[in-house]
């Protein structure tokens, strides 16, 4: 296709239409998505959020180096130092079965005696180890739940929007029914029912959170698809006889998915919050599994002496709050960027 170049003097035209360089990234993402990305990178709050997320991601990746497991086959089992109930204060020595010393220990701490840096919790579970490996659990559960809910939401939402009419109506009413259930209670119930059937592990809680977490994505992608399916290129594809599924997956979804994708990536924080709530209530993993909610739940038995044993809630609690805050900071900035009234402003 050749462009018709207007003949004659077009300096006036060139001056009115401001031109700027369009970079490779912008070309790849498209103008609207590019605006979302740059908007996020310009807000100080969201940059701080990205820093927090990166920090936790590094901890999760380096967990075997920061806190080497006693038994490499079961790294998520928090090592115990004896079986006494009383939590031990920060800095107390390992007495039995100390895990191997990490490489950073001697240069940083100046001794070659393993200590409980952040103390031990009820039953002598090492708090530091629980927090470090709990970061991995947080990312694992967060990612599994987010990706699954995202996929389910995308499929249901796009089918609903693409076919419209009665299909759309039925699916959206089902979505409404799911939305009326109180999230934590519904998840709690499902996880309770599942636990005796599939055993104590991360999965009852994960399945429960997925089952009641997909509706938001379905609604958002539905709205975006409803506007995109009226575009000319979709009409063109339909005219030349492309199959429904191919139109949906090749032409519509790739163009509609970006806002939902960004929202989903930020839901990881909320998922971890709900997951911690469930494991605090005793739903989920075995006692002693490296999971922040699990570590925190020990504190329930020591409420009257929390002023002495403050470290069994403050440290794991801080990890959880900062982790979730990282995602929320980015999410808050995103809400401003996605606000339709902001569109067109830089």
């Amino acid at each position: 296709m050749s462009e018709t170049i207007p003949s004659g003097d077009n300096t006036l035209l060139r001056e009115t239409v401001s031109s700027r360089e369009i970079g490779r990234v912008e070309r790849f993402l498209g103008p609207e998505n590019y605006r979302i990305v740059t908007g996020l990178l310009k807000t100080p709050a969201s940059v701080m959020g990205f820093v927090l997320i990166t920090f936790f991601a590094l901890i999760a990746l380096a967990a075997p180096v920061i806190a080497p497991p006693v038994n490499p086959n079961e790294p998520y089992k928090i090592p115990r130092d004896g079986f006494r109930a009383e939590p031990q204060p920060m800095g107390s020595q390992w007495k039995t079965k100390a895990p191997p010393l990490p490489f950073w220990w001697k240069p940083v701490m100046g001794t070659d005696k393993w200590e409980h840096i952040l103390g031990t919790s009820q039953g002598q579970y090492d708090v530091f180890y629980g927090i470090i490996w709990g970061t991995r659990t947080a990312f694992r559960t967060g990612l599994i739940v987010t990706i699954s809910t995202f996929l389910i939401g995308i499929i249901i939402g796009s089918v609903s929007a693409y076919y419209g009419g009665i299909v759309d109506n039925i699916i959206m009413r089902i979505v409404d029914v799911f939305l009326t259930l109180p999230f934590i209670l519904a998840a709690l119930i499902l996880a309770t029912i599942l636990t005796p059937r599939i055993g104590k592990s991360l999965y009852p809680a994960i399945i429960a959170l997925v089952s009641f977490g997909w509706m938001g994505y379905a609604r958002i992608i539905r709205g975006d698809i409803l506007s995109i399916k009226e575009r000319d290129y979709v009409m063109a594809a339909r005219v030349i006889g492309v199959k429904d599924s191919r139109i949906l997956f090749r032409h519509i979804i790739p163009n509609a998915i970006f806002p939902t994708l960004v929202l989903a990536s930020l839901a990881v924080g909320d998922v971890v919050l709900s997951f911690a709530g469930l494991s605090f209530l005793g739903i989920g993993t075995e006692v002693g599994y490296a999971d922040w909610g699990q570590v925190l739940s020990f504190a329930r038995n020591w409420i009257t002496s929390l002023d002495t044993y403050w470290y069994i809630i403050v440290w794991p609690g801080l990890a959880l709050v900062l982790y979730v805050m990282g995602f929320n900071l980015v999410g808050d900035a995103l809400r401003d960027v996605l606000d339709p009234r902001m569109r067109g402003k830089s």
Partner: protein
Amino acid sequence: MVEGVIKKYKLDRPLYEQYWTWLVGTVDVGSGERHGGILFGDFGYSRTGSQPVAELIKNRFPNTLDLTIWAVAPVILVGIWLGVQAAVHQNTIIDQAGRIFSIVGTSFPTFVFGLLMLMFFYVKLGWFPPGRMSDWASVIVRTNEFHSYTTLLTIDALLNGRFDIFLDALRHMFMPILTLSYISWATFLRVTRSSMLETLRMEYVVTARAKGLTEHDVIFKHAQPNAMISVVTLAGFSVVSLLGGVVITETVFNYPGIGQAAASAAAQLDVITVLGFALFNGFILIVSNLVVDVLYAVVDPRVRLS
């Protein structure tokens, strides 16, 4: 024995028949008595509560309702006030402080916040105890002189003229109320702020300013009532989520409401009890949605006219 149980609960029958039995129960041919049937209010026997589920709900729900009633006012009023302040002072230090406040609020897990409060207000300072009431109060409440009019402890205490018991109950509810409030304020702040910002851009607000009204009148008489329309939905939802969200709060503060009972039932895999609470929760949800719809008409004259 096993066969008797299978027969009794019709476990050898097809699924739809079992479901029907669960719904309406079975009628004993000899005595004409009905056994089971959730439609007739029989939710089964709670293993963890050691009493029928319906009894358990009847005993526990007034406590939760009492807590919710006292929590609703601070949650909604303070939440809206914060949102209005943030919107009126948009992009100033007040707005930024509100933003940080709400981000921290949404990031705080209820139970961590609750445990920190226990550590500070209960263990360190000894101001506010957990639980429902002090021992001396529960002794008085159990006597015959203390009449139970509404089953809501705070209101009963006032009706009996026992102001000391009323204060004691409030003292025990302080921490759960503050926890529930802080978590909800963040959401209220955000919704009120954006709704208020939108309203402040309307032309009638400009008109109000142009005709020389004071800033106070412009904001509280012209803008705020209109900004409240979207907040009402949220308020309705928040009552529901307060009733559902008390699960963790009640557990942390050892407050004997339905949330705590549901949580301990769930932790011990007592499906029957949990199911009973779920159905009850659904009932509450429908009722409060109805209330929200009616409230809409009160707040928004356009809904009333059409």
